[in-house]
């Protein structure tokens, strides 16, 4: 028999509508402008671990038979708005990521992304807390907010300094925890070891009954965050976890066009080395940064995951109308 019913019940669909309404009220009251940007773009993210969907435009105009990429987040377009003088902006939109499916992943998902001009990333963490508490505070028990630096996190779990550790030390941690090491993992690079330890040993315990922010990541995991030239350098990035689920990822945004260009190029080299197709660098974003983007902090929040947490469900299927297998 063909399954055609939605996998989410109507109680959860109404909750989604309610969350959307409250989110819009939250930002309206703070004078943050709601915007829309395209989901299709001629440029794409260059993150070496992000698989991008693409399609071909067939017609008329100068883009005839051109490859277009589905956004993995609205970040690049929103930054162009910021550079053009939009001021604080937010949007709720669809993001697409190929190769990501599971209990907490659907290749097409709803992302809430916002940028605060003049905020630093610690102020933005506080605003994330306020929004999350307004949406889910009366639905799940949350005892408070915890802020832990990436260094504190690894220090208290493994007694190591993640910014100065060696692959040998990381390997012995993984041994102690009896972790299975993927045969093809690049064991000479500390980052995969850090990811392995984080996802396997730490994440499931993060934010149990509270909001846990992890901030100040290794510079090698900066993505589009600004790097603070400490010794060792630190990327001004944060993530929010509730009940073991990663919910949001935020940055003190990198405004330097030259550094952004170098990072994109380095990412594409990395993509090639891991066998991923290189993606076109977003020249328009770089031009916007060059003309000057105001200092700002930005964050993306997994809206479906927040709903999942609010309902106590253990899979996104309960809050999506038609997840991948039924779409």
């Amino acid at each position, binding site marked *: 028999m063909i399954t055609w019913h939605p996998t989410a019940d109507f109680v959860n669909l109404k909750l989604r509508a309610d969350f959307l309404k409250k989110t819009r009220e939250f930002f309206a009251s703070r004078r943050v402008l709601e915007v829309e940007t395209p989901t299709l773009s001629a440029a794409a993210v260059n993150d070496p671990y992000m698989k991008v969907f693409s399609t071909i435009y067939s017609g008329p105009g100068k883009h005839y038979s051109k490859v277009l990429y589905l956004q993995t987040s609205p970040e690049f377009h929103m930054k162009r708005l910021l550079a053009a003088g939009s001021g604080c902006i937010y949007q709720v939109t669809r993001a697409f990521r190929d190769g990501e499916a*599971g209990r907490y992943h659907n290749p097409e998902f709803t992302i809430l992304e916002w940028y605060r001009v003049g905020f630093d990333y610690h102020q933005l963490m506080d605003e994330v807390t306020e929004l999350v508490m307004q949406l889910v505070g009366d639905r799940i028990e949350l005892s408070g907010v915890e802020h832990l630096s990436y260094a504190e996190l690894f220090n208290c779990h493994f007694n190591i300094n993640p910014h100065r550790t060696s692959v040998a030390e990381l390997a012995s941690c993984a041994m102690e925890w009896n972790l299975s090491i993927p045969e093809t993992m690049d064991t000479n690079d500390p980052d995969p070891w850090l990811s392995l330890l984080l996802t396997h040993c730490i994440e499931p315990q993060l934010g149990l009954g509270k909001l846990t922010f992890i901030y100040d990541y290794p510079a090698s995991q900066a993505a589009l965050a600004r790097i603070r030239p400490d010794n060792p350098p630190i990327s001004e990035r944060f993530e929010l976890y509730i009940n073991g689920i990663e919910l949001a990822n935020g940055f003190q945004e990198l405004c330097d066009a030259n550094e952004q260009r170098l990072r994109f190029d380095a990412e594409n080299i990395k993509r090639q080395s891991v066998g991923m197709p290189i993606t076109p660098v977003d020249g328009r974003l770089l031009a916007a940064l060059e003309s000057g983007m105001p200092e700002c902090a930005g964050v993306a929040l997994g809206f479906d995951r927040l709903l999942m947490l609010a309902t106590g469900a253990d899979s996104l299927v309960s809050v999506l109308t038609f997840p991948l297998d039924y779409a």
Partner: protein
Amino acid sequence: MTIYSTSEFKGGLKIMLDGDPCAIIENEFVKPGKGQSFNRVKLRNLKTGKIVDRTFRSGDTAEGADVIDVELQYLYSDGEYWYFMDQQTYEQLAADVVAVGDAAKWLKEEAICQVTLWNGVPLSVSPPNFVIMTIVETDPGLRGDTSGSGGKPAMLETGIVVRVPLFVQIGEVIKVDTRTGQYVSRVKE
């Protein structure tokens, strides 16, 4: 030889791991906010029955295991091997003591069993869910007790001992659930 990528991993898929055939029980996709994603896979080693946890990098591959389940008829045992027959082709296959394992105590001649073959060789044997066997030894028990409470041990024709109600006697035929080892009912012959 079939190669499977982690994207194709799902419950029931049989792959080779460290030279042993394994069945995937669970496959969880995990990804940190930025960086390498992994697949945490729970598997059952089909040779040893042991459950193993293994992490793959997303996109890694594994060789498929040539493992199939077939229904075969149990013929006899010579003590070293248990012989089964494919009822369509009349081909005979021998399973060793490791493959037969605990199923041995439930095997009665002519029983149809599910046999898991790896590269054509029996890897494990599951007895039928229910078997019908004759009681060869049990205490006389108490006459008049029909409630079935308490029960008593009874040895069946293959040598296995199960608990039966007090009213069941030597020579009677009973039905037993092999998954739980529990008495189900008497069977009229």
